[in-house]
C-alpha cells in the first residue's frame, strides 16, 4: 500500500452556471449509460424484439403475393399496416418501456444507483443524461428496425424500380416520415416510461394501463385522443389507415402541432422527473 500523501485540490466551482463542468459531467454519464445500455446482456432481448418486424417482412417476401410486393401502392400500404400495427404499437412501445423504465429502476434493483448520487453532480443532469442515453439507444435500434423493414419491402422490386420510386416518387418522403415517426415515438414513449420508472416501485401496472389507453385510442373522443401518444404519431404518417368501423375519427394534427407537442410533453416530463429525483432517497431495502 502506498505511503505517499498528497491531496489534490478539489476543483473550485464558484460560477453560478458552471456550463463547462456540466457539459463534462453530462458527457461522462452519457458514456457510462450508453455503454451499459448497448452492451448489457439484458439488451439481447431488445435486439430480438427489434428484429421481429424484419422477420415478418422476410416471410412476406418469401411466401406473400408477388404481385402485391411489386405494386408501389401495395408496398407502402403493406408497410404502413405492419408499421402501425407492429413496429409502432408493439416494438417501439415495449422497447421503449424496457429501455426507459430501466434507466433508474434497474439500478435501484441492482443497488447501484447510489454511486451516481454520491458524486458531485446535479441530479437534474443525471436525469437528462440518462434520458438522452436511453433515447440514443431507442432511436438507433428502432431506426434500424424501420429502415431495415423499408429496405426489405422495396427489395423484391429490384434496385432500379426501387430507386425510381424513392427518388422520383413518394418513396423518400415515406422513408423520412416513418423514420422520423420512429424517433419521435422514442422521444414521447421514452419520456412517459422514464416517469413511470421513477415514480412507481412496480411500473408494470401503470405501463399496462398506459398500453391499454394507447390501444383504445381509436375509440376515444377527439379531446381524449389528444391525451394519447399514438394520436400524435399517427397524425404524421403519410398513409392514413382505416381503424375499423367503430373508430371515432378525429382530424389529424398538423406536423406543426404534433411534433412540438411531443417535445413539450418530454420537457414537462423531464422537469417533473428531475424534481422527483432531486428528492429521491436511497433505501434499497424498501424496494
Amino acid at each position, binding site marked *: 500500500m*502506498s505511503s505517499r*500523501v498528497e491531496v489534490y485540490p478539489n*476543483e473550485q466551482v464558484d460560477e453560478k452556471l458552471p456550463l463547462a463542468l456540466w457539459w463534462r459531467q453530462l458527457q461522462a*454519464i452519457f458514456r457510462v449509460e450508453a455503454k451499459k445500455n448497448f452492451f448489457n446482456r439484458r439488451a439481447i432481448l431488445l435486439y430480438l424484439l427489434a428484429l421481429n418486424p424484419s422477420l415478418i417482412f422476410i416471410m412476406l417476401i418469401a411466401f406473400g403475393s408477388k404481385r402485391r410486393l411489386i405494386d408501389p401502392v401495395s408496398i407502402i400500404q403493406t408497410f404502413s399496416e405492419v408499421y402501425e400495427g407492429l413496429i409502432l404499437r408493439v416494438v417501439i412501445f415495449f422497447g421503449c418501456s424496457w429501455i426507459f423504465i430501466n434507466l433508474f429502476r434497474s439500478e435501484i434493483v441492482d443497488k447501484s444507483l447510489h454511486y451516481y448520487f454520491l458524486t458531485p*453532480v446535479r441530479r437534474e443532469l443525471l436525469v437528462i443524461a440518462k434520458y438522452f442515453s436511453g433515447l440514443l439507444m431507442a432511436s438507433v435500434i428502432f431506426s434500424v428496425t424501420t429502415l431495415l423493414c423499408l429496405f426489405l419491402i422495396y427489395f423484391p422490386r429490384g434496385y432500379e424500380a426501387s430507386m425510381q420510386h424513392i427518388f422520383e416518387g413518394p418513396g423518400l418522403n415515406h422513408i423520412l416520415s416513418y423514420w422520423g415517426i420512429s424517433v419521435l415515438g422514442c422521444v414521447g414513449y421514452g419520456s412517459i416510461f422514464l416517469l413511470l420508472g421513477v415514480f412507481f416501485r412496480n411500473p408494470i401496472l401503470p405501463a399496462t394501463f398506459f398500453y391499454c389507453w394507447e390501444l383504445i385510442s381509436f375509440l376515444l373522443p377527439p379531446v381524449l385522443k389528444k391525451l394519447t401518444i399514438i394520436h400524435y404519431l399517427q397524425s404524421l404518417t403519410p398513409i392514413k389507415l382505416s381503424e375499423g368501423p367503430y373508430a371515432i375519427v378525429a382530424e389529424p394534427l398538423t406536423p406543426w402541432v404534433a411534433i412540438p407537442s411531443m417535445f413539450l410533453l418530454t420537457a414537462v416530463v423531464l422537469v417533473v422527473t428531475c424534481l422527483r429525483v432531486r428528492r429521491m432517497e436511497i433505501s434499497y431495502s424498501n424496494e
Partner: protein
Amino acid sequence: MITFENVSKFYGEILGVNRINLSISRGITSLVGPNGSGKTTLMNLMSGLLRPTQGSINVLGLSPDQPEKLFRKLGYCAQFDSFPKGMTGRDFVQSFLEISGFVRKEAINLTNRALERVNLVDAAKRKVESYSKGMRQRIRLAQAIAHNPQVLILDEPLNGLDPMARAEVIALFRQLSDEGMYLILSSHILHEVDMMSDRVVLINNGYIVADGDTRGVRSEMQEHPLQILIRCDKPSLLAARVFQQDDIVVEARLHKDRRGLFIKTVNPDEFYLFFNKVVLEQNLQVESIHPVDDDLDAIYQYLIGSEGS
C-alpha cells in the same frame, strides 16, 4: 465540523434515529452499535442519501441537500456490495471521477493513486464481478477516496478483508486521519475500532447512548465500577488492606492462580494513590497492573449488552 441538530429519521412508523445531537471533528470517529441501531441511517443522512424527518445536518458548512457541492468534499464507501454492471475496477473508479467533473487526464492520475493506495493496481483491469469480497471492499474504498475528500464515511469498511488487508486499510485510515481528514466509520470489530478511533459514538435503538473517547466514556459509567487486575507477590496482603477502603473499593477477589487480585473501584484515581501507598509500606513486588474493562468491548457490553449480540 459535522453537526447533527435534533435529527430524527422515521421510515414510516419505524424509528431510524431519534433526536440526534452530535458534533464530529477531525480524526477517526467510529459509530458502534448492534445491527439496526441506526449507524447506517446516520451515515446515509450525512451523505444526503436519506433526508431527515426533522432536524438539520451540516457537513463542513454544507447541507446534504446540495450533492453538487457536498461530494467535492465528501466520499462515502457504502455497505451495498453491488456495482454497475460490466465495469473493470479501473473503469469503476475512473468513470465516477469523470462524472464528478474531472478531466480525463486528471481522472486517470487520481484513479492510479487510489488503486495504489488500496493495493489493487494489478487487479484493476479485471471486471469487478470477478473480484473477491475483500477486493470489492477495497475498490469501493478506492472510489470513495479517489477525489481526495475532506470527509470520508465508511460503512463497515473492514468487512470481508483478510487480516493483512485489514491492517493495511487501518494504517491507511490512520494516515488519512493524520492528513487532517474527517473519518466516520462503523464497524462490528470492536477491538480494531478501539485501537484506531479517536472517538466512539455508541448507538442503540436509534439513540446515542455514549459519545467520546473510550477512556472518557468508561470513566463516566459510575454504575459499572472499573475492574483492575493487579499481579503481585502478596495478593492476599493487598486484599486485606483493600477491604479497609470500602469507600473506594466495591469488590476485591483473588485471581484463581492466587497470584493476582481483581479490584472493582468507583474511584480509580483515589485507588491508585492508595495502592501506591500500600506498595511502599508493604514493599510489594508488583508484576503488572491494568484495567480489564475499560475497552470498547466492555463499554459495549455494559451499555448495549445482550441486546446487541
